[in-house]
């Protein structure tokens, strides 16, 4: 039985077409990669600038920690835990802890009652 096989003849035209196809694919891939890498670099740069901005804003603040804020300390001394600074006092617990959903009407009642007491 005879077996027919292709002879490896490689013409100039085949070379030009094959390499042309590869070249076109490489150029297109290069364009897409350039768009992607540039966008990535721009994004990285933006994130770095934004982070630097937030840090510098924070560093320029006179008061940087809430538990050292004199106004907050005063509120505790005068109202939330009279005479001392006690962040877990009962009043602080009731007034500063967030309530959700069906607990809200009870909280409003409690606040109103407290307002009346204060008045």
């Amino acid at each position, binding site marked *: 039985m005879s*077996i027919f096989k292709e002879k490896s003849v490689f013409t100039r035209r*085949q070379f030009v077409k*094959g390499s042309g196809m590869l070249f076109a694919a490489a150029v297109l891939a290069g364009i897409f990669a350039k768009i992607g890498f540039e966008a990535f670099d721009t994004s990285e740069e933006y994130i770095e600038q934004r982070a630097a901005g937030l840090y510098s804003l924070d560093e320029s603040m006179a008061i940087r920690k809430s538990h050292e804020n004199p106004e907050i300390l005063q509120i505790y001394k005068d109202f939330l835990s009279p005479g001392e600074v006690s962040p877990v006092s009962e009043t602080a617990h009731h007034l500063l802890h967030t309530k959700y959903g069906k607990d809200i009407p009870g909280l409003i009642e409690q606040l109103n009652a407290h307002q009346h007491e204060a008045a």
Partner: protein
Amino acid sequence: MSEVNGKVLKHGEQTRSMHWIHLLAFIILALTGIAFYWDINGISNIFGGPANASLVHRWAGVVFTVGPTIYILLNFERFARFVDTITTITKDDFGWLKTMGGYIPFLKGDIPPQDKYNAGQKMLGCLIILGCLIMILTGFPMWLWRHALSSGFLAFCYNVHFWTAIILILAICGHFFLAAIHPKSRVEFASMMLDGYIDAEISAHHNEKWFNELQQGE
């Protein structure tokens, strides 16, 4: 039909391996892609749920890209010959297209002799090269730079990726039907998926121009 005995080696070992790898990667990509687009959990769950299916899609995309690239680099001559064949359109190809190679019952007429690939296969070859390139170029930005690219560019990639996928899936379904099911051409299936050989008589009939070249070379 000419009376010829013997076999023709139509597709070499590396070509068949690349075709298998590309086919498997394509099936996985198509299934996972369809699962994402239409939110079909039944398909995603085959791959371990939507999140895993997404990972499988990306890495199948890497195989889909790297497989043919390695093949082309190792077999540049063969690739260049393939590109030359599918981009060389002669009046015989137009003749084949006029009768659609005899595949459509009401289109009658003589079918001119064809190259290693007939006009329909040439069109499919061009479509697959172009389609795969578009899928690769629009797929990787959506994976690697999705947090950095503009939403407009990403939407462009997303839409082009989707519509090219639809065209490719339909084209591959047609390719599968003609190469593996249609009684006139299903002999092609074994030559690409199994041993690479096809009967010389069939080749002499379906790819007369190419077969004559082979005979001259003997």
